[in-house]
């Protein structure tokens, strides 16, 4: 096999496998915070994402009966939906939300579990997350779980049977980027399930850093939808994730304190 062919192989045959299903894109995106659903669709298509998140909320009764529906604009036949438990502050709320989501999506059992601790930080309440995960796993849900950048909690969630573990880079919507790259690297090193950075990414370089650390993917929402041009940022994120993944496989040079000449020293004529 030629080097060129090997390179192509690395670039094209590198699927993300979650719960036995192969995905070509390693970027998962949200569907909220956009100007409207059409902008959401444009951005999602520019991101190349195959897995998209959604929230479960009360239906407006008697208001705007013809309001466009998320599932009509972005049909579940074309995307893999990942219903989230955003807004849940207890295991009980999260479990109810997942059951409703499964019913809403005709038995689709892949969910994003997040149980939040407080409104100021939106940091996960890890003990409630464990409780919810235990119940949901018994009920046959496939859980991609949002958690802290804590290697111990991440490993425990994996051992419980979650299909992917998703540590935060920084608080949800903060755009601060990866605050603790060493913990993320440790989580990745220990893991046997996909590790995806979820929350806190601000711009393309943050996504590339996550992928260079060896993460299997990223899930993001605000960094794209909150950008001045969400569609362009979605495209940037797609490239950053791909670039970061390739750099990870390529193997970076070690960091050194002093220079190493790029041109030969031999043959200098002065």
């Amino acid at each position, binding site marked *: 096999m030629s080097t060129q062919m090997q390179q192509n192989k690395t670039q094209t045959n590198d699927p993300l496998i979650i719960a036995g299903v192969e995905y070509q894109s390693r970027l998962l995106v949200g*569907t*909220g915070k956009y100007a409207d659903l059409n902008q959401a669709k444009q951005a999602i298509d520019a991101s190349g994402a195959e897995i998209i*998140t959604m*929230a479960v909320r009360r239906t407006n*009764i*008697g208001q705007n009966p013809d309001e466009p529906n998320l*599932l009509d604009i972005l049909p579940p036949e074309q995307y893999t939906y990942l219903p989230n438990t*955003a807004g849940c502050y207890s295991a009980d709320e999260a479990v109810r939300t997942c059951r409703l989501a499964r019913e*809403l999506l005709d038995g689709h059992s892949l969910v994003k579990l997040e149980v939040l601790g407080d409104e100021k930080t939106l940091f996960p309440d890890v003990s409630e997350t464990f409780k919810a995960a235990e119940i949901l796993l018994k009920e046959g849900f496939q859980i991609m779980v949002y958690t802290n950048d804590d290697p111990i909690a991440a490993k425990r969630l994996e051992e419980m049977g979650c299909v992917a573990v998703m540590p935060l880079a920084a608080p949800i919507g903060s755009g601060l980027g990866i605050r603790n790259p060493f913990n993320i690297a440790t989580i990745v090193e220990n893991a046997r399930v996909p590790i995806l950075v979820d929350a806190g990414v601000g711009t393309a370089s943050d996504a590339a850093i996550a992928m260079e650390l060896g993460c299997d993917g990223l899930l993001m929402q605000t960094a794209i939808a909150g950008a001045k041009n969400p569609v362009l940022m979605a495209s940037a994120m797609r490239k950053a994730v791909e670039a970061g993944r390739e750099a990870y496989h390529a193997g970076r040079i070690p960091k050194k304190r002093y220079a190493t000449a790029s041109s030969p020293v031999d043959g200098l004529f002065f």
Partner: protein
Amino acid sequence: MINGENRQIPDVCNVSQLIEQLNLTGKRLAMEINQEIVPRSTFETHIICPGDQIEIVGAIGGG
């Protein structure tokens, strides 16, 4: 009680009829009554009782 609001719905006995009354027929939704899921397959047969806590939810954009 539907989605947190007190409602008097006359002439409704099962879930299918309730959905029709609320103009939600054919919409993608999921329902829980008294914190228990009501599967779509049982909408015709599930009888609504006075005082039931009903939640009707749908999918919306979120991250």
